[in-house]
């Protein structure tokens, strides 16, 4: 009963609800169909099994629209490719999509809708920590496998993690592990963190800062409200000896802090460093020419030319499938920049689901636990489904590990990869062991 495969609802039997469901189905299939069309015309007949439904929740209306747009695009493309290749275990894959409105309350409501009304088999999506935290206990309650789309809260795979959640994507602690040393060695030892006075900003300042201090560096932390419009009062507080200014804001303030740093001429005396989350999906031309010289810690090179040689073939196919140009733009709209560093999760997760289904012999929700066990021991080799390179899951905390990149903004506003941090260097002790909990 709890897994949503209970008896049919009266309404469903009566049929009054059918038209609406058909509508969703039609839209999702239509989208998928379009994506298929762009790939190949090979018709395919599926086995007798009923379709496997993957539910997604994405940030489609509020704040982070661009994330929702691109993550959904990637998910649809992946599902289309899966179906073109025979689906999962001979069953067709369907996508059901809802918007989170970047609102944990709304998202959890939609998440329940996915599980209980749409009766999906697996769930994925969202880049928002609050949203994932809110649906996280529901995933556990319903024993519903859930794969985050790129939220950075360390707690999601921390000591209070739940067994039905997995993250193949990086988070604050891993970012720090990947990024601090390089910055410390190459940019300077005296850091100032100007971050949002917000859970996310706090954790970045803490994760990076503690490592810098441990290595003998100096840090200063300036907190500013996430919705700050005018950063001058905070920028003026930056210590004159600062060598590295690390900023972390989302949305409009991320642009604001970037340009206002330059407006005050600070860029001439210090290095700017940030995580790509601040401006992923925002074209560098939008961030402005002021950003030239700024450093980003990213999880996928924005430009195809910057992708390591051995991955370029996969990258090319992947970009084509999701409709992204070599410069990380929408093929149909050169103004629309992709959230390159986040969206690949939605491309890879469906494939990993397929792998785990096949490994565990999953048929329906009864084997969800086995499925999760299988999923969290996957080692995905670089390939068409893993254009970002090898990816490894850790069964203890359900955390995935992948390569990170350091990119610097060129004067022509392209992003140039100047370093690559291998996933092996990012390992840290697992804070929890979930293996016994499945």
């Amino acid at each position, binding site marked *: *009963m709890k897994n949503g495969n209970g008896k049919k609802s009266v309404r469903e039997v009566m049929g009054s609800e059918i038209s609406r469901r058909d509508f969703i189905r039609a839209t999702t299939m239509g989208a998928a169909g379009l994506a298929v069309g762009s790939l190949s015309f090979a018709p395919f007949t599926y086995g007798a099994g009923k379709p496997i439904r993957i539910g997604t929740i994405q940030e489609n209306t509020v704040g982070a629209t661009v994330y929702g747009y691109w993550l959904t695009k990637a998910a649809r493309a992946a599902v289309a490719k899966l179906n073109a290749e025979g689906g999962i275990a001979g069953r067709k894959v369907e996508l059901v999509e809802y918007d989170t409105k970047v609102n944990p309350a709304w998202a959890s409501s939609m998440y329940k809708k996915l599980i209980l009304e749409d009766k999906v088999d697996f769930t994925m999506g969202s880049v928002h920590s609050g949203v994932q935290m809110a649906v996280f*206990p529901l995933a556990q309650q319903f024993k519903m496998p859930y794969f985050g789309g790129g939220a950075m809260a360390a707690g999601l795979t921390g000591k209070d993690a*739940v067994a039905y959640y997995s993250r193949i994507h990086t988070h604050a602690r891993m970012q720090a592990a990947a990024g601090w040393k390089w910055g410390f060695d190459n940019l300077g030892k005296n850091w100032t963190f100007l971050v949002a006075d917000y859970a996310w900003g706090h954790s970045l300042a803490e994760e990076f800062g503690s490592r810098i201090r441990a290595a003998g560096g100096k840090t200063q932390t300036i907190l500013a409200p996430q919705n700050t419009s005018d950063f001058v009062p905070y920028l003026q507080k930056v210590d004159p000896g600062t060598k590295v200014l690390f900023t972390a804001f989302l949305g409009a303030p991320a642009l604001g802090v970037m340009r206002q740093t330059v407006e005050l001429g600070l860029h001439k005396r210090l290095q700017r460093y940030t995580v790509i989350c601040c401006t992923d999906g925002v074209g560098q031309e939008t961030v402005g020419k002021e950003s030239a010289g700024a450093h980003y810690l990213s999880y996928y090179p924005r430009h195809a030319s910057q992708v390591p040689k051995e991955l370029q073939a996969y990258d090319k196919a992947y970009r084509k499938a999701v409709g992204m140009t070599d410069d990380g733009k929408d093929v149909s709209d050169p103004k629309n920049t992709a959230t390159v560093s986040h969206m690949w999760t939605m491309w890879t997760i469906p494939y990993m689901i397929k792998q785990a289904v096949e490994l565990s012999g999953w048929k329906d929700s009864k084997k969800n636990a086995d499925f999760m066990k299988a999923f969290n021991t996957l080692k995905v080799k670089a390939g068409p489904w893993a254009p970002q390179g090898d990816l490894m899951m850790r069964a203890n905390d359900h955390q995935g590990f992948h390569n990170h990149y350091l990119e610097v903004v060129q004067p022509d506003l392209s992003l140039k990869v100047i370093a690559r941090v291998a996933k092996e260097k990012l390992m840290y002790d697992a804070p929890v062991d979930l293996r016994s909990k499945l």
Partner: protein
Amino acid sequence: MLPDKWKAAAFPLAFVLVAAVLAAVPFFEDLFYQTFLTEVLVWALFAISFDLIFGYVGLLSFGQALFFGLGGYAVAIPTLKLGMGTGSGLLLSVAVPAAFAAFVGFFSVRLTGIHFVIITIIFALIGSTVGETWTSLTGGADGLVFMPPPLDLGIAQLDLMDIRTTYYLVLAIVAISYLFLRRMVRSPLGKVFVAIRENEERARLIGYDVRRYKLLAFVIAGGLSGLAGGLYTLSLKYASATFLHWSVSGHAVVYAIVGGAGTLVGPVLGAGLIMALEHYLVNLLQATDLVVGAVLVSTLLLAPMGIVGFLRGRRK
């Protein structure tokens, strides 16, 4: 017109009928409707608690989100950090917000009209600012996840990880709260509230300490808003500083206005209708706020007394 005897029997009958239908839902409907109705009931409780202060006493509080969010934390933090039980968490979710409401109300009820509106927004803003930045305690905007231990009722242990149990718990608490409020607004105390709404100066002149009654209403409303927040948190297993933001009060305002302020059944209807509308619309278009805003504005212009007021007007 119905004979008085019938009229007196109408409410208990209707209430029992509605409660019975709601109680029967888990036997006929799948889990989705249980969780959906759980949510509707929780927001309905939030809306009637707001309506007590707005519809009955005439004070427009945009700060109820503060108590809603506090109620959530009053359940989550003791459970998570102190290992306390769910039962005491629920009691705290009434007591803590009520205590805060007493503090906030002590200052707020001195003001009337728009000044009151603004001071309640400010208090809520202080709450959400503290909530969002005191991340070690509140988890900030990311929030706190917790797994509520079973609720020990002495005779039975209620497993709150179970949808149906949670549904019945929420249904029972909301039904009791509804009956409590109904009794209260019909009691001598409720008559004072309404008198203050209708004519504050007159109420003072016939000997009512208006501020004290306003404060009392504010505290009761705060406690019940907190209870709604507590139940919400309990059903989600999640508390967040975003629930403290003053704009969350907007839900209650919309439900109460659309359903009919100054009645108890109105906000419940409003919550049900608007939420059903949102859930239906979400499959058709993404801009649900557009529809909610438009419904709110057109209600204000076309049926200022809300659905209930409109129906009553028609009947007359």
